[in-house]
């Protein structure tokens, strides 16, 4: 089958290439990914992608060195849930039937002979997506807290046990306890904040985390002012102040949970989804496990 794209191939499209180089001052060649995204008609939630991996050359022919296709499917199939081997067939089937009986989920498409279900109420789906984004933000802050500063509280522990199961949670906390103890030991060796930031940057899994650490250091220096650090003691004190500065920032983030979902605060999310929260009150024990803060009583002191 020929796949006809509404856009001509980049290889022949001079306009796109010209625009591309006009926007950039990079030296040629540049490696880029191009994603062709396709949403089949009927709003089925299927997303087809063709990803092309190119080497763009300013003065010579561009070369495509690889391409791949992705097919993203909506919702879930019962088989996928069972494949995780966390639950038995009868329980998953009971849950799926109960959700269907309450019209919470509905069949969407059949793919490779397996029925896929989606959440019937798109606003609920949108709300769940936002909860998950907050959950991920909270979880990443918590991991930092446990890794660098403090042991988990019993409440935090029980929440992770509920999410991961006893065994997995025990393994997870053991790793974090060890990481925290190494961090605290290593902290004694560093003489300056710069040395320390280089050390924690090595632990980062991506560029954004490195960027965040640089921003933290810049902010700290702004707050500290141009104080001259002459003696070793001054430098060491400065390092401890920076560590505390990071810790305070982290605790503040944990309290207010800034996130990437576009919601400045959890209160705003609660307001926007007030009707959905009310409509699905019976579902709160489940959603609370993912994002308890959204279901906590409002803090009027703010």
């Amino acid at each position, binding site marked *: *089958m*020929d*796949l*006809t794209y509404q*856009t001509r191939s980049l290889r022949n499209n001079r306009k796109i290439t010209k*625009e591309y180089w006009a*926007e950039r001052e990079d030296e040629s060649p540049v490696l*880029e*990914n*191009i994603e062709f*995204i*396709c949403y*089949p*008609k*009927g709003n*089925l939630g*299927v997303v*087809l*992608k063709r990803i092309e991996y190119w080497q763009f050359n300013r003065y010579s022919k561009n070369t495509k060195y690889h391409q*791949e*296709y*992705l*097919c*993203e*499917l*909506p919702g*879930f199939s019962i088989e*996928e*849930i069972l494949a*995780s081997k*966390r*639950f038995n067939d009868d*329980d*998953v089937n009971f*849950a*799926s039937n*109960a959700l269907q*009986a*309450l019209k919470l989920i509905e069949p969407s*498409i059949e*793919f490779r002979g397996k029925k896929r279900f*989606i959440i019937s109420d798109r606003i609920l789906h949108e709300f769940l997506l936002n909860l*998950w984004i907050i959950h991920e933000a909270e979880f990443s802050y918590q991991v930092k807290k446990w890794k660098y500063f403090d042991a988990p509280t019993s409440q935090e522990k029980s929440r992770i046990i*509920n999410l991961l199961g006893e065994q997995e949670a025990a393994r997870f906390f053991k790793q974090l306890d060890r990481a925290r103890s190494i961090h605290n030991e290593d902290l004694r060796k560093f003489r300056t904040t710069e040395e320390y930031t280089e050390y924690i940057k090595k632990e980062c899994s991506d560029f954004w985390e490195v960027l965040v650490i640089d921003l933290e250091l810049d902010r700290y220096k702004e707050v500290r002012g141009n104080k001259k650090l002459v003696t070793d003691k001054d430098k060491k004190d400065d390092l401890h102040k920076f560590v505390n500065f990071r810790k305070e920032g982290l605790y503040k983030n944990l309290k207010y949970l800034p996130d990437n979902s576009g919601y400045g*605060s959890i*209160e705003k999310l*609660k*307001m926007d989804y007030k009707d959905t*929260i*009310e409509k699905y*009150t*019976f579902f*709160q*024990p*489940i959603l609370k*496990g*993912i994002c308890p803060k959204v*279901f*906590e009583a*409002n803090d009027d002191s703010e």
Partner: protein
Amino acid sequence: MFGNTTTTEGLNMIEAANSYSPEEYRDKKSGSNYNFNIDNAIIQILLSKPTKLGHNDLKIKIENLLGKSIWPSTYIGHIKRLTDVGILCKEDHGIGKKIEYSLTENAIKQARLNLIGVPKKKIILFRKIYQTILFNDISESIPIRLEVEEDFDKLILAECMLREVIFNGEGYQLQIMLTVWISHTKLEV
């Protein structure tokens, strides 16, 4: 924060009404003596027909189900607590007349989902299943990845649903809103 007291009160009320949590209640209020079998019996009895029962009828049914008699004060304690947390709805028909109990709408839904009215272990298990189901496509969905165009064609052709959609009267063209992204920069083409 936003000066909307109605919303705040509304959400706080929901929070209060939804605070039935077997494990938390056991820890905070009644110690380890609280008998959840009585709660579960009340919920299961009222989930089946008749869904509304008088004070004494309900007590007899609970005793039959549990195979033992329960103290009136114990029974009243359970009824009061289930009413307070929004599980039971009490209908008082006036002085000297019958008091009837039924499950609230939320409680019926929760019971049908195995989120109340069953042993604690089962409640926790079902919470996990629902979390997995509801957040599966958000958190765990992995796309099908193919490297060869022919395999991709085969995949699409094999799926009738997709074929119908794709060929929908428009010839050999993917019916798409095509957006091209170059490393997160959207190009208008």
